[in-house]
């Protein structure tokens, strides 16, 4: 037997051994038990939109994580209704409860009712013993995908190779093709968890010669499968950050508004090291921890708690990094910031505060007869409209029903109602009382609103039927 033949024989033997050790179909069948589909409804003034996401079970209490994009962060938690959890391949819906999102990891948390829990296995059961595996370039990885609802979320397997690992700022793996449904786990050959797939990076396909479109090229987005995943080391240690309330509070707040990245040329000009970068603070918000710490607009943050800000590719990841560092902490925590101001390098000591009430947390009321939703004026509204928080009064128009009386009068979403019938709307309660009085008075034929829109004002005369 020639020597080369011998080598080939050995090689074949080796391949066979690996294949036996990793019986992927069996591993897959076991690991499908940590995946679910989550359906819920987004309730708006005028419609109800069914929404679907995939999730991974993280504990024996039936807690499920969904990717950030599974829940639109602009929506108020009370608009999210009727959470149902489906076990792959089974059309039976189980009741789910939305627990809120964690701003640090970005995961959205849902809990499934007791009776489904025995059918599920937490993903932690498939974590490697000891250190989490860090996949290497070209390594073969596989994950789980779920078919659409019409097919009872039948599970299937996806397989690909790792082509790149990037800091975004979390360690993120990129595979050559889609490797799992977004929110679903990714495994290596041995069946150890290597990460959880993120929302699709927007994989696009050009499809030509679609008859229905006259042969024009159409672009298809694959939202059901993803080729991005967050590495287990950046997932597993933080799974316990289960929100205690739907608003995900407490939320740490610095108040450095509109951070901007810098490119390599700017960093070099500022004599930062090749591994370092910075973020420009566009504005320092009124009464914020940043303001109290003495931060000024146009300061450049170059280090947090003594740690120089790393250089990321692409540049804009630095913004996520800074926000991430703040989100990691809790209100009351101290944070030291090194900033460049002109030719000076300054150390600022901030005590993080609690994020002011967010738009999604603001109270709102829909007036059916008037055809619009009034929303409480919150801190962010004052920032957006460049007014002092103390000057904040009135209400914000959250929604205008098309062709309703206020729409016909020219009211638009995001208008700031300052006066109702010629008298100032002092605050939300005052505005509500007066709008209710108008809406509930069947004799009322018209009313007048003074609104501010992009710095201009308009007086709108609303005719009622």
């Amino acid at each position, binding site marked *: 037997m020639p020597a080369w033949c011998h080598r080939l024989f050995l090689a074949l033997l080796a391949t066979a051994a690996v294949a036996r050790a990793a019986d992927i179909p069996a591993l897959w069948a076991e690991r499908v038990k940590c995946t679910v589909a989550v359906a819920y409804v987004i309730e708006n003034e005028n419609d109800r939109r069914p929404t679907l996401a995939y999730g991974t079970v993280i504990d024996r209490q039936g807690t499920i994580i969904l990717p950030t994009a599974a829940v639109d962060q602009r929506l108020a938690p009370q608009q999210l209704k009727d959470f149902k959890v489906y076990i792959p391949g089974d059309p039976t819906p189980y009741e789910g409860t939305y627990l809120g999102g964690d701003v640090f990891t970005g995961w959205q948390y849902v809990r499934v009712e007791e009776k489904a829990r025995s059918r599920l296995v937490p993903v932690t059961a498939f974590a490697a013993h000891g250190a989490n595996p860090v996949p290497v370039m070209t390594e073969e990885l596989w994950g789980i995908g779920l078919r659409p609802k019409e097919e009872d979320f039948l599970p299937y397997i996806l397989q690909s190779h790792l082509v790149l690992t990037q800091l975004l700022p979390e360690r993120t793996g990129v595979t050559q093709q889609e490797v799992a449904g977004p929110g679903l786990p990714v495994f290596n050959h041995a069946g150890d968890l290597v990460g959880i797939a993120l929302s699709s990076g927007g994989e696009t396909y050009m499809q030509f010669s679609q008859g229905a479109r006259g042969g024009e090229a159409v672009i298809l987005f694959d939202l059901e499968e993803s080729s991005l995943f967050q590495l287990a080391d950046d997932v597993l240690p933080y799974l316990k950050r289960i929100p205690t309330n739907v608003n995900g509070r407490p939320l740490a707040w610095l108040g450095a508004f*509109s951070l901007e*990245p810098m*490119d390599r*040329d700017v960093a070099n000009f500022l004599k930062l090291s090749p591994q370092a970068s910075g973020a420009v603070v566009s504005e320092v918000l009124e009464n914020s921890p940043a303001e109290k710490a003495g931060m000024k607009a*146009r300061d450049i943050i170059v280090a947090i708690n003594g740690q120089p800000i790393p250089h990321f590719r692409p540049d804009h990841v630095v913004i996520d990094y800074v926000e991430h560092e703040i989100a990691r902490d809790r209100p009351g925590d101290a944070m030291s910031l090194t900033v460049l101001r002109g030719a000076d390098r300054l150390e600022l000591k901030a005590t993080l505060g609690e994020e002011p009430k967010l738009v999604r947390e603001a109270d709102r009321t829909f007036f059916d007869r008037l055809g619009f939703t009034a929303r409480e004026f919150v801190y962010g509204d004052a920032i957006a409209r460049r007014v002092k928080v103390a000057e904040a009064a009135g209400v914000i128009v959250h929604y205008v029903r098309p062709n309703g009386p206020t729409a016909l009068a020219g009211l638009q979403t995001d208008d700031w109602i300052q006066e109702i019938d*010629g008298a100032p709307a002092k605050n939300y309660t005052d505005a509500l009382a007066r709008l209710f009085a108008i809406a509930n008075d069947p004799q009322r034929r018209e009313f007048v609103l003074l609104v501010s829109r992009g710095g201009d004002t*308009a007086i709108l005369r609303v005719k009622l039927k």
Partner: protein
Amino acid sequence: MALGAAPFSAPAAVSRGFTQLLDAVVRIDVQQVAFDQGTRRFEASIGSGVVLSSDGLILTNAHVASPQAVEINVTLSNLERVGARLVGWDHWTDLALLKLDMDEVRRRHLAFAHAEFGDSEKLFPGETVFAVGTPYGLARTVTRGIISNTHRYFEGDLDIDGYETGMFNTWLQTDAAINPGNSGGPLVTEDGRVIGITSRSYLGASNLGFAIPANVAKVVVAGLVRNGSISRSYIGVEPTALQDLEHFYSLALNTGALLSNIDAGSPAARAGVKVGDILLAINGSKVDGRFPEQLPPIQNSIASQPVGATLGLTIKRGPQTMTFAVTTEKLESSVGEEGAFESWGLSVRKVSRAYARENRLPDATGVLVIGVRPGFPADVAGLAAGDVITTVNRQPVTSLDMLKAAHEAFAAKPAPALFEAERDRRVALFILKP
């Protein structure tokens, strides 16, 4: 087949005035400098104009001849071409005044006629009018139509290449065919009197043309002859038609105008005038802003006050009537001085006080990027039109001259320059590299 057309008026051809008018209409060729693409470049345009006097004054549109013009040539009715210069322009009314090179006219023994203004307030809808001009370069084109509306009002902000226009006048509307190139030409009655200066039309629409009324033009011409520019007053109020809100504000009909906008930091704002106030009178003269068509004259009555004058505004606020003393400022355009910095491939426009006010910038520091040249340092660094450059090498950009100095230093000894710019309230840094 022939239709027996009844003679509805005397044919224009028989009017001496009309013949003379035709000899007073000129074609205007303008070479002007533009800074919008990161470089200085020249562009050519064609318009029309009308000679107003024997000493060679020509009235045209501000959008035909602006201070950016570097060369103006006028083609007289006898087809002779003569140079001309800009006497002054007023973009607010879209009018500009030129003067023929009279030395050249005398030297070459050229002759031309001049036109007379008519009274645009005496026009009536349906009256026959003629537009004369150079549509699409077709010189000496006469089109006929009628006055469709004597006081056309345009809602919303109009502009000429970014310059504000139209706040202080209404327009004559006509169905005489108006095409690009007609701009600046006269709209005349059958006796050849100029009752308007053709200014705009809806492209693609059928026969919707607009002209600046002669009575507005007469005042502007007099001002431009006297001072080379028109000085107007500004107090920062924007009136809105009351339409049928009189009842809501407990007002008699045809009384007052609703102030729907007060510019932040303007004289009116500083005096305490508020949005929602009803302006009843200016210096004791009653204001009637019931309909939108009545708003430009109100604006004009404020603008016509001497700069620095103190106006007594009678204001109704709720049940009270009060008087505010408001001292006017000079009206400024939001469009500042422009320039191009070719080594950077960057075109900018100075931030004016009006621009800063409109865009809620803290002050008038900085220059607005109006264009970048692809592949040049500004473009490569990431600057884009709409950015406001606030500092260069950490020095605040307070004037175009300051930027010129920095640019000259860059051109003489190329070295990276640090630019700080604001875009949608976001402050970012850019390095312009040689």
